[in-house]
């Protein structure tokens, strides 16, 4: 197991470097940050001097090496708009995004898995039909529209829940439902088909024959085996969550990384955009890494295959 983890960690380094290069290239291609910093009537020689000071006249690879060198030390540049280190802006916003993503994932897992199992057990009943219809609709609905409709229903018409900001648990409910909806629907569908397979397995029949209560048969014997493929899926879903967070945070004025990056793009704040995209991509890759390791832990066969 230690070897497996070590191997995977080693693979992470070149990938992280490649990601940082792409992000660096994006920022480089986006435009000249100096033109955004100076007033229009600045003399050309002053601009040139400034470019030299910032190291923008150096060869591309030298600039990249400097970028990585600083990034390793936790310096991701300075936001043009906020005049603050990008790292501290990100550190300030990151907990909010993690909170939202975790809550959405919890919604997707609990609601998705529970309804998927329930539908599989009651296969062919109206309940099953209802779950499947909801899952189909849930995957066709653009999440940001669902967010708006939730605001309309629970915020405007019923006036039950707050529709913006962060702080209380009540403020978390609507954003988490919005961001989690697609994955809830997807999980319900996958878990249902997974469980339809499992319910016919011999080991469940054996467990029943031993006199294990039905609830325990499902939860202990069934769920354990049904969860294995979900681990990989959850990691892939992190990408959906991090990408979707951008929109959900915008709708609900949630003070997270997603809003930070959207506003940075609006403001043409290249250093900040670059830093945010880099951090989000690294989080996603790390999530996948953790999932790989968890997968190997749950299912020993994986460790020896590679």
């Amino acid at each position, binding site marked *: 197991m230690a070897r497996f983890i070590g191997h995977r960690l080693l693979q992470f380094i070149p*990938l992280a470097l*490649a*990601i940082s290069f*792409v*992000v660096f290239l*994006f920022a480089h*291609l*986006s435009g000249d940050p100096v033109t955004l910093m100076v007033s229009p009537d600045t003399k050309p020689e002053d601009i040139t001097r400034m470019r030299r000071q910032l190291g923008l006249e150096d060869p591309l690879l030298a600039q990249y090496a400097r970028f990585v060198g600083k990034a390793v030390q936790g310096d991701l540049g300075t936001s043009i708009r906020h005049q603050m280190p990008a790292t501290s802006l990100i550190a300030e916003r990151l907990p909010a995004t993690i909170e939202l993503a975790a809550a959405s994932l919890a919604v997707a897992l609990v609601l998705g898995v529970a309804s998927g199992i329930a539908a599989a057990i009651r296969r062919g009943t109206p309940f099953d039909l209802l779950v499947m219809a909801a899952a*189909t*609709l849930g*995957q*066709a*609905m*653009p999440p*940001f*529209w669902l967010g*708006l*409709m939730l*605001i*309309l229903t629970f915020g*405007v018409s019923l006036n039950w829940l707050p529709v913006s900001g962060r702080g209380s648990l009540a403020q978390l409910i609507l954003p988490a439902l919005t961001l989690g909806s697609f994955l809830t629907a*997807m999980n319900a*569908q*996958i878990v249902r*088909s997974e469980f339809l397979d499992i319910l016919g397995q011999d080991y469940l029949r054996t467990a029943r024959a031993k006199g294990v209560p039905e609830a325990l048969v499902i939860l202990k014997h069934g769920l354990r085996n049904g969860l294995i493929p979900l681990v990989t*899926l959850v990691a*892939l879903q*992190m*990408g*959906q969550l*991090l*990408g*979707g967070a*951008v*929109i959900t945070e*915008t*709708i609900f004025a949630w003070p997270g990384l997603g809003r930070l*990056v*959207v506003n940075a*793009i*609006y403001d043409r704040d290249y250093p900040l*955009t670059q830093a945010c*995209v880099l951090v*989000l*991509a690294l989080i*996603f*890759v790390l999530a996948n890494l953790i999932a790989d390791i968890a997968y190997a832990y749950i299912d020993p066969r994986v460790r020896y295959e590679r």
Partner: protein
Amino acid sequence: MSGSPQRLGPRQVPLWIRLLSPRMNLAGFAGAVLLLVVLVTGLAAPLLTRQPPNAQDLLVRLRPPGFSSAGEVPHPLGTDQLGRDILSRIIHGARVSLIVAMTSVVLSGAAGVLLGLLAGFYGRRMDTTVMRLADLQLAFPFLLLAMSLVAVLGTGMWYLVLALGIANWVSYARVVRGSLLSLRERAFVEAARAVGASDRRLLFRHILPNLLGPVIVVATLSVSRMIIAESSLSFLGLGVPPEIPSWGGMLSDGRSYIYTAWWLTAFPGLAIMLTVLGANFFGDGIRDLLDPQFFTRRIRTG
């Protein structure tokens, strides 16, 4: 080769016949019809609407659905904050939505198929390069990547298509490479090679037609993803420019009026949902039809 009559390839029945066959399931058929309706509506938009989508009438701002101004011009779905007819904008928005979705699917499909062919056919270095590139791309959450590309390329409809195209080639490349690896060893490829077919002829004449099934499956399943991505980016103001009526843009406008005028946000969203539903059903139908083994596990990445 064995002595028994050998199938030269899985391509016996032309694809278009299989698509029209009654084996297409009901949901898939319904999805196709739904998509077709949206497509025709979008294409015939100027004929179907009485008001141009951008025609403003400040006297009838924010009127609810069913409202007719002075008993003459009906607004079945109401008007927006500038007095523009919502129905007309939705109908014209269908055009934008489908144009962007389909062209970006074609673009990413062409790029992905080409890269997948190169990787699977030449193997070794080429394979490693393409697959590492795919890994790198998959490290970025899809929507975030599309946004970053828009930030680099600039805003505008065709830049959006380009960004979405670049962001989505990987699924094609993977499918093509995977199928090619098994096809490469088949007798009909060997036979073509034995009679001296060039690499290009082998790839495009003999191998590619056999890969069309899985590629079409991936393409139809990507349409809904593209529709949602386009509307998401337009909603954020990073997609289609505001002067072109788009569903995402309408939702973005309507957001400010959500407390007073629900119809501004409700209808464009419904349009997106129905179209995506149609695309999903159609995609599933085609998948079951062409590729029964592909089956339920549809893993959508980032």
